């Protein structure tokens, strides 16, 4: 099923999140991540789709059906809440069976479905326990199973991994990915963590300030960001920024002059800042402030005109370094923030 928000406008008080004429589409059968910093309106969109929020104007479409005014009970969706919202008085088995019970599914059929789902999320051995006896990861699996119980046409996940530690996170990313593949249900996954999004989503919708900044695959967003906000949000360490006005001449020369004339800011990915093989090749020199080992990568903080961070410089004892910039990792932005040119364009 394809879910569409069409020209949706919504303003409601608690956190002043405002959507204005917002439009987006979640393609059928895909796992889409809605990525954005907190306060960007991700949860608002999720709740709109779930029917927990009603838009002031605009339409919500499931395929061709207008569900804007439809109660969430009748939308046939599944949802996993950030705090899981498991029913504390029901066993795992009954939690998963709850939506089916509400739909008056016969007990035998219910049990069969529970068994299937428990197998899918690998909690078959926990069925008799109460939620409070489970670890966070297990609770997450239960919540997922419950959300899938009545074969929803849309699965909504609200920051499902945010309260888990790194190992569990990895594990559950796989679970979610696999479950989505196995069931083929259209899934919207809300997160502020780009790794979650990059790792499992088919598409990422990047949201900031109540605006949809860009939609695309992880690679699209990284290599071809539409604007400064996207470029800054995706990729770690964060994009290095250098005002065009203060660029050293050798570096300026390596960029297309026509674009440069309109641009105000140069963005350089950290892996594009490399050690020049010979001093003559250097586009500028920088002072080493600090070097840190982050697993495979070495993170080098440099002081040139602006402060820069590189991940492509091997460990060194020298205090100043000659640096070259890989054109591939360069991006030029206009004063409006629009991306004018990327090194990957060629």
């Amino acid at each position: 099923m394809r879910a569409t928000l069409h020209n949706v406008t919504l303003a409601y008080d608690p956190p002043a999140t405002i959507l204005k004429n917002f439009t987006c589409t979640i393609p059928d059968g895909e796992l889409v991540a809605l990525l954005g910093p907190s306060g960007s309106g991700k949860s608002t969109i999720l709740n709109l789709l779930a029917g927990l929020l009603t838009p002031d104007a605009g339409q919500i479409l499931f395929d061709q059906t207008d569900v804007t005014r439809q109660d969430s009970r009748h939308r046939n969706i599944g949802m996993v809440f950030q705090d899981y919202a498991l029913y504390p008085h029901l066993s795992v088995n009954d939690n998963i069976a709850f939506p089916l019970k509400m739909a008056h599914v016969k007990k035998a059929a219910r049990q069969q479905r529970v068994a299937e789902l428990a197998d899918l999320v690998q909690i078959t051995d926990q069925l008799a326990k109460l939620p409070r006896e489970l670890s966070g990861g297990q609770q997450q699996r239960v919540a997922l199973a419950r959300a899938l119980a009545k074969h929803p046409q849309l699965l909504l996940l609200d920051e499902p991994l945010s309260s888990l530690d790194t190992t569990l996170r990895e594990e559950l990313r796989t679970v979610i990915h696999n479950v989505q593949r196995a069931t083929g249900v259209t899934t919207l996954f809300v997160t502020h963590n780009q790794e979650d999004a990059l790792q499992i989503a088919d598409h990422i919708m990047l949201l900031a300030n109540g605006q949809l900044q860009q939609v695309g695959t992880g690679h699209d967003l990284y290599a071809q960001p539409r604007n400064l906000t996207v470029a800054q949000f995706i990729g770690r360490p964060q994009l290095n920024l250098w005002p065009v006005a203060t660029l050293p001449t050798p570096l300026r020369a390596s960029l297309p002059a026509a674009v440069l004339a309109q641009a105000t800011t140069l963005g350089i990915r950290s892996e594009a800042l490399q050690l020049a093989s010979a001093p003559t090749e250097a586009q500028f020199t920088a002072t080493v402030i600090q070097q840190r080992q982050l697993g495979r990568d070495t993170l080098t903080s440099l002081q040139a005109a602006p402060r820069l961070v590189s991940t492509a410089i091997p460990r060194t004892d020298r205090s100043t370094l000659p640096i070259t910039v890989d054109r591939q990792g360069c991006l030029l932005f206009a004063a409006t923030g629009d991306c004018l040119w990327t090194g990957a364009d060629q």
Partner: protein
Amino acid sequence: MINSRPTLKSTLRAALYLAPLLIITLMFTVWPLINALLMSSYTKYNYYTNQVRALGWANFAYLWHDPTFHLAVRNTLILVLLVMPITVALSLLIALGLNRSERLAGLLRSIYFLPFVTSTVAIGLVWNWIFRLDGGLLNAILEKFGLHAIDWLNDPRYALLVLSMVCIWQGLGVNIILFLAGLNHLDQRYAQVATLDGATAWQRFTNVTWPLLLPMTVLIVINTSVTNFKVFDQVYALFHGSAGPGNADLTMMYYLYQKSYVENQVTIAAASGLILFLFVGSLTLLTYGIYRRLGRWSR
């Protein structure tokens, strides 16, 4: 849901859920209250035949000038100001002490709750026996310690104190149960997090338990005050149907009882009831107001 605003339809739906409570309340609380309100303004009134010949403020004027009523107001206020804080503090303390799952706590919980189970009348007689001058348990203990026996019940200086003690004793049970129910709702993780943050037991209480317990506390404070504003049974039982030596334990409720059932002055009784209501109401509003100012009522 989250942002839904009241509509005619949602109001009707809510009305269905509210109807049972509201209908009963309207019939058996609001309607008689209106009756009482009207009655307090009748000055030449035949209660049985319901003939009203004059309306006015005479009943309130009577209360304004009646030294007995002043005494009742004074006693009631002293009682509330004495009993309420002590009851709330003690029951919180005991509830915190009992909020463990050890086996002994279960038994103790039951014991603390016992006073509430018993009818006031019977227990009043028992207290009467404990406080009596000779042969009373309390005086027997005092004499063991070489102190003079005190005529607790017949000395106007002590009679109100005795009443306070009985009220506290009887009020503890409910409040402990309510506090325990409130503690039950607390998320222990906050306390654990606070412990990790290096908070002492006291800091944990003031910074974590107490704020989270505040809604229940406000409810208990209001409820305890209301209960003690309305003290009657205890007085009646403790002093054999009198208001204590020299009216030392005359409460507003007892005054109301006397006016309406002993003296047949129903209009004055109604007026005094309304004043009692105003007292309790303003006190509650005050508590509620302070609480709202703390800004926690609406999350």
